């Protein structure tokens, strides 16, 4: 057994251990902390699997922002006794079928074809025509642009869904989930120092996405995190949900994407096609708009449904 394999085995065991801990931790808060650590280790696995783009996304979104949302929820759970667990018969049955599915999947993994089919060559081969160096970005923004377009709409939709959970009287107010009564001075300091740096990192991630790991999702996530930091400490206030400006920002990315896609009918020969020679600048424009929209959407998703001006509730 090589050292690398041993290290990977240790990583896998650690991940499984944290996953189990997350499942059995006594407090919800503990479980969420466990999950965040777990997410960071999974990001490490992504690096080991040579998927740096995914690793960045996992660390920022899968571990960071998701953990943040879950922590916020864990703090508001009722303190009294949790609901009863299902009876032992059901637990046993659940265990048996879950284990069976896992075992079946393990067998499938072991039986995967020796010569793995792949689209990697095709994806790489077409990159020069797009002026891109990062094939992942090529997939996201060109080959499978429709997925990304729908994806950015999904974020807007998730936000609409979130806002629809407001109370009728609270409509038009500002999102209130992040307002903390008195943030610790350390956090305030962090919120003053970190954002300029974070914004730079976010922009860099978006910009470098064209040639190296990074892109709109990763960059947007970092920007959103910075915004959220300032929101939590009260340095900035979230916008009112009724404002047209914030909505324009939210749809700017998908709308520009759609507009350029439609223009592709005439300029590129097909919907979502880029005219030869102009691909790179158009892609960068879309990425920029998407980064902005994603940052705003993620930030607002963390900020929760709107609350009336009268003050925070619950």
């Amino acid at each position, binding site marked *: 057994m090589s050292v690398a394999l041993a290290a990977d085995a240790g990583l896998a065991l650690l991940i499984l251990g944290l996953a189990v801990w997350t499942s059995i931790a006594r407090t919800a808060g503990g*479980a969420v902390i466990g999950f965040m650590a777990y997410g960071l280790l999974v990001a490490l696995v992504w690096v080991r699997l040579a998927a740096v783009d995914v690793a960045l996304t996992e660390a920022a979104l899968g571990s960071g922002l998701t953990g943040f949302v*879950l922590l916020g929820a864990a703090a508001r759970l009722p303190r009294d006794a949790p609901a009863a667990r299902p009876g032992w018969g059901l637990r046993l049955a659940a265990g048996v079928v879950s284990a069976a599915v896992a075992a079946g999947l393990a067998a499938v993994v072991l039986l995967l074809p020796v010569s793995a089919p792949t689209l990697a060559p095709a994806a790489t081969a077409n990159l020069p025509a797009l002026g891109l160096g990062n094939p992942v970005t090529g997939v996201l923004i060109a080959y499978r642009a429709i997925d990304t377009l729908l994806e950015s709409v999904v974020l807007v939709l*998730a936000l609409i*869904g979130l806002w629809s*959970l407001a109370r009728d009287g609270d409509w038009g107010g500002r999102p209130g989930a992040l307002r903390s009564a008195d943030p610790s001075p350390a956090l305030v300091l962090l919120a003053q120092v970190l954002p300029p740096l974070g914004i730079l990192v976010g922009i860099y991630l978006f910009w470098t996405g064209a040639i190296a790991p990074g892109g709109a999702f990763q960059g947007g996530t970092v920007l959103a995190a910075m915004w959220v930091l300032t929101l939590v400490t009260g340095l900035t206030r979230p916008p009112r949900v009724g404002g047209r400006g914030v909505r324009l920002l939210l749809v700017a990315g998908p709308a520009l994407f759609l507009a350029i896609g439609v223009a592709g009918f005439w300029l590129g020969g097909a919907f979502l096609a880029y005219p030869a020679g102009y691909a790179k600048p158009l892609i960068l424009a879309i990425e920029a708009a998407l980064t902005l929209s994603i940052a705003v959407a993620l930030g607002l998703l963390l900020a929760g449904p709107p609350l009336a001006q009268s003050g925070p509730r619950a």
Partner: protein
Amino acid sequence: MSSVTLFGLCGAALVGLGLFGLIVQPGVLRKILAFNLLGSGVLLLFGVIARRGGGVVAGNGSDPVAQALIITALVVAFAATVLAVALLRRLVQETGRDSLDSDG
């Protein structure tokens, strides 16, 4: 056994763990956590597939198509988590309970 297969088996185990948690955990927050474990297990399996495919041509790469799909799926999972958490918070606000079945 290679590292890639190892992570594949790890992914399969995470899927099993996630499914089990999603089914038996009584609290909704724990269910959401289990859903995230399940999701990351599935994506890990996908990543293993991507690594195998990428390894064939580039020697030390990962299939960019699969990577793009994984990133998209991660964003979807995040959106789902946010929506579920928002519903949970509203449920706790309205009823004071954090479980779906009154009997577990």
